[in-house]
């Protein structure tokens, strides 16, 4: 029986672990937090069909429960050494594991919105991130918490920390456009009186049902989409926010007063993935995301043989894409092990 160590117990790690167990291997899943699930634990409802994140998580948990593999929680990898085609993994807790293959599924981190100083996150009281809003969208939560009252005017800012040289992130985070559309609709459902504006540069509705949801947002929920990147926010005396953008389609500078500003924060490879890259001695790109052997046929292969990649440690990905990528990683590991 071959032993595979998976680093990172988010949804990519969970899905890979299940698939590899099904293929007849012994798996150890290492997670630094106290529970599995990663970032999925932070989301309430998923685009594009508002499936409760809980439901996906529970299904994945059940899948893991039903299978026999080892899970090490609150555990971090100290070192990964290669020795005679085996990987010797040591954890900070002093555990030593020997693996035939390694899967890195260390995931991503959300962009720290404080770095876009001009939007005043953690300075202006009523500026929140999409992750903050997600928590407020849970049933029964009080939306007035974020704006001191039920907000009458809300603006979403797309591309916060993405497609932005100033943040050091040139790439598109892919999921924020549709997240904005989803969250705008949810807010409108909860606050039918509120006016909602999305400030975007391009709306990248790449996935199944995404474009339809965008259309629904416009037609059914009267959400306004303004093509212009937000330049700055400033807090007024009543704590509302003065925001400035250009309505580029009419070619005019635009100033607006809003009660709540939501920053659609992008994805970064983050510390977890940087650490994994360092421990495993695998290559990463300028963006920090892990380098795959190619874009098309070898997207689960790292620069080192026997170390495989799954999920958003390689690029920004939706929940959907992550699960698919994790499954394909499991298949590649399985085929590779059989060839050994």
């Amino acid at each position: 029986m071959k032993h595979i160590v998976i680093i990172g117990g988010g949804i990519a790690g969970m899905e890979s672990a299940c698939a590899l167990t099904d293929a007849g291997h012994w798996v150890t899943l290492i997670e630094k937090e106290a529970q599995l699930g990663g970032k999925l634990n932070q989301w309430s409802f998923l685009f594009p069909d508002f499936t409760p994140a809980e439901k996906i998580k529970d299904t994945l948990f059940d899948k893991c429960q039903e299978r026999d593999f080892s899970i090490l929680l609150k555990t971090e990898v100290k070192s990964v050494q290669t020795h005679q085609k085996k990987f010797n993994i040591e954890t900070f807790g002093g555990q030593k594991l020997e693996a035939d293959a390694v899967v890195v599924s260390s995931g991503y981190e959300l962009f720290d919105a404080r770095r876009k100083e001009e939007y005043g996150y953690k300075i202006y009281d009523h500026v929140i991130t999409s992750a903050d809003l997600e928590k407020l969208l849970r049933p029964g939560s009080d939306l007035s918490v974020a704006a001191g009252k039920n907000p009458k005017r809300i603006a979403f800012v797309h591309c916060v920390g993405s497609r932005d040289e100033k943040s050091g992130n040139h790439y598109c985070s892919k999921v924020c456009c549709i997240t904005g559309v989803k969250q705008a609709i949810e807010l409108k459902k909860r606050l039918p009186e509120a006016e909602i504006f999305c400030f975007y540069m391009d709306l990248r509705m790449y996935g199944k049902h995404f474009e339809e949801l965008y259309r629904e947002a416009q037609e059914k929920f009267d959400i306004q989409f303004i093509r212009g990147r937000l330049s700055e926010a400033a807090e007024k005396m009543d704590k509302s926010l003065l925001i400035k953008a250009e309505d580029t389609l009419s070619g005019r500078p635009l100033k607006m007063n809003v009660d709540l500003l939501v920053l659609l924060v992008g994805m970064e490879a983050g510390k977890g993935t940087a650490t994994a890259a360092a421990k495993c001695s695998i290559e990463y790109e300028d963006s920090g995301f892990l380098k795959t052997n190619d874009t098309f046929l070898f997207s689960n292969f790292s620069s080192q043989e026997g170390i495989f990649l799954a999920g958003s440690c390689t690029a920004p990905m939706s929940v959907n894409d992550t699960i698919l990528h994790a499954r394909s990683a499991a298949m590649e590991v399985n085929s590779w092990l059989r060839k050994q």
Partner: protein
Amino acid sequence: MQNEGKQKIWKDYQKEIADDHYFYVRSCIRQNFFPGSEQTFLKILRAELNKDIFENPHHTTCSGIGYHSDIVPFDTIQTIVARQFALMTEAGYRNLAVSCITSFGIYNEIIETWKEFPNELEKIRNYLKKATGREFKIPQNVSHASDIIYKFREDIFARKKYSLTNHETGKPLKIVEHIGCHYAKMFPGKGVGGAEFPHVLVGMIESWGGEVIDYPERRHCCGFGFRQYLVMSNRGYSISNSKKKFESMEPYRPDAIASNCPGCPMFLDRWQYVIEEMEGKTYGQNGRGIPVLTYEEMAGLVLGYDPWDMGMQMHQTDVEPLLDKMGIEYNPDLKYAGKDGKQIGQVKMAGCKC
């Protein structure tokens, strides 16, 4: 508003400011409109802080206003700047203390250009050598004069006579800050606190007992716009931008506006007068204007310098409301007097309450 985010930013942008031995370069606008501020700066450094700051009478304008109104080519201003550096080098100094924000921006722009395009540096070395026979070293440290006051703000406060508080109530005075655009908007790392939440004036005001008011149009330009003010028929640009700031700060009832730029305080001062003349509108308390301070004047007041010695009579918007709040003793009869104590000419103040 929460301070947590601001504190992170202030921690992130701590620039190096030399602590002694400065070569001083003056500002054209400061010398014309607030020459007393430059004298105050030198006095504070020399008499209060015991610093060595050297001025060479041969230094000239950096030609920045000409450059930013596009009549001076880039090669020309680079060479003029190189000449200032040569004077600094020859005098044995390595730290530049810059009075002007436009110049400060230009020094930074040129030094950065030379880093990125070394050929450009070689070209300018040749130009300077050919034109003047001089050679130069790039300064080790370029600090704006406000950076230096910021660095020593606690030492200044240790010698204080007054603080930025209302002497009757003991409450902090509410001050809005205005940072010159070219201080950090081009190179955020060159300014204390960066471009979005500069700490350079905030630090002074808070250390000296005042309270800083952050208002929505804080970051907006005063409206100088170089050619937009220099040419009479363009001045609508200038006044409308200043006005936008006044309207935005008015609800907070600030006791004063402080600026670290040479031009901005002049515009924020003069346009208040013009708006009152045109529309009868005033932005301060009791139908008066909001006093506008240079940071040198603000430091000088804290140290107990005489406002008229510092040239505060050269403001169009009266500074007395602020002096009274701080409990500063001054002689109103000497406001427009000369060195000999006699009135200088006649000030026609009819119709201006500012």
